[in-house]
């Protein structure tokens, strides 16, 4: 904006301001309504959604794959989209830093004196695209589910075992239902192939590259065996 445009803006703003209403009580009234809305929404969310506590942090379960808070899903998904190791720094630091610098310096490279979104096609399009991209990444990140999450409905008595199996990272190599990798044999119907005792033997004394799970507490191992044996 050159000096002339600046002056013209300030003059027009002065005129609009003269025609406006005083902050108190008009804007204050709207803000107060908004205050009530914000507080009520948060309170209702707190009552309905609550604040459940997850299992206690356990540094020994090295395979627990974390999930960030939903508003970091877009970053999380970026990491999944750019999976090759060479691109990881780009996803973790490169793109977010660039986006942040672009955002911070926006008023300094957008020199267009026009303010109406309908007459700023480039800025408006870019803004809408960014919103769509962020929304899409957030949605995909939310859909993806944690790699250690077994999305399967099981009878309540097997729930503990399911959590234990997920927590031990079996999905890194084995497929269970919709989740998991294909390095080891699929476990979706392992219960029909191996008896519970066989499953237990394999967990304690596995063949090939599978690590032994003999060091687990007995009740945890029992629940895992029960869960796996129930898969038919």
């Amino acid at each position, binding site marked *: *904006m050159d000096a002339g445009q*600046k002056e*013209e803006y*300030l003059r*027009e*703003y*002065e*005129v*609009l*301001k*003269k*025609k*406006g209403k*005083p*902050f108190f009580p008009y*804007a204050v009234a*709207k*803000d107060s309504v*908004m*205050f009530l*809305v*914000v*507080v009520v*929404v948060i*309170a209702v*969310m*707190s*009552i309905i*959604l*609550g*604040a459940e*506590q997850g299992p*206690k*942090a*356990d*540094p020994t379960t090295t395979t*627990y794959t*974390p999930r*960030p*808070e*939903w*508003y*970091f899903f877009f970053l999380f998904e970026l*990491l999944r989209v750019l999976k090759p190791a060479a691109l990881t*720094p780009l996803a*973790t*630091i490169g793109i977010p830093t660039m986006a*942040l610098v672009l*955002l*911070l310096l*926006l*008023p300094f490279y957008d020199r267009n*004196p026009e*303010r*109406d*979104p309908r007459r*700023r096609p480039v*800025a*408006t399009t870019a*803004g809408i695209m960014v919103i769509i991209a962020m929304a899409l990444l957030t949605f995909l990140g939310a859909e993806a589910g944690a790699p250690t999450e077994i999305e399967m409905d099981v009878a309540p008595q097997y729930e503990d075992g399911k959590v234990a199996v997920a927590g031990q990272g079996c999905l890194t190599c084995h497929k269970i239902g919709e989740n998991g990798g294909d390095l080891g044999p699929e476990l979706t119907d392992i219960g029909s192939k191996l008896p519970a005792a066989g499953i237990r033997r394999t967990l304690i004394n596995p063949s090939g590259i599978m690590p032994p799970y003999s060091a687990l507490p007995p009740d945890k191992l029992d629940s895992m065996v029960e869960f796996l044996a129930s898969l038919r």
Partner: protein
Amino acid sequence: MAKFPDTLIPPPLRKPAKPGQNGHRNGNGASPNGDSEEKSVVVEKLKEAPVDLVGWVDERTGASPFLTGMLLRKVPKGTNWFYTLGSATMFAFIVQALTGVFLAMYYTPSPVEAYASITNITNDVFMGEFVRGLHKWGSSVMIILIFLHMGRVFFFGAYKYPRELNWVIGVVLIVLTLVMGLTGYLLPFDQRSYWATIVAMNINGTGPIVGPYLADFLRAGAEFESTTLSRFYALHMLLVPGAIIALIGAHLYLVVKLGTTAPPWVRGDTKPKSLRKEKVG
């Protein structure tokens, strides 16, 4: 009725009697109907007290021109509900600050006790789960509102001259709000928060040049240790909120000083009528 002591209001606060009403205070001679007269004077004085107090404070701070200027300043024509998003974000922050103080009273920032103290807040403390829920969901609401506010400023072109600096402050506030989300996520010390934090710090570590140092700073060492949690706690409830409060102050100062924008489609007629006629003719 007992005599109301004149010393209740210190002399600087006492207002000189209005002309024509000076009868009693300076009055010589007893009033004809004693007590009731006395009572009305006391009531009168008490009614004046707030005004006097305001006057006293104003005389010493000079705040009233500032306050009236702020409250009665004109908001441009066309200001609509989109303009409440900034205040709404601040209200969400206030909810976070108040519930945060409450939670800090019961929370123990040590890896051994943190989880149990959260269990205690959730199950035993009166309204504990509700307040924890307010804090947990308040953060999501604040993030949504701050992004909506940024969207409004972006699409209305409100970041342009003369408000560029306020845009920059706003972006820093967004980053700090996300940092609050990140540091607060570890504090409940459950599996989710622990492992998400490990990953977040590893991600920091991949950054060029400063990355490893930043990760070491956050972890308070090369590995996740007991000091890490207290470090996150200090960042989450002292450093970052302090910075946020200071920047909200600067943000609001600039808002009051520069004024809020009018919606870009509302035009003001800047040309005097006579000038316009000349042009047409």
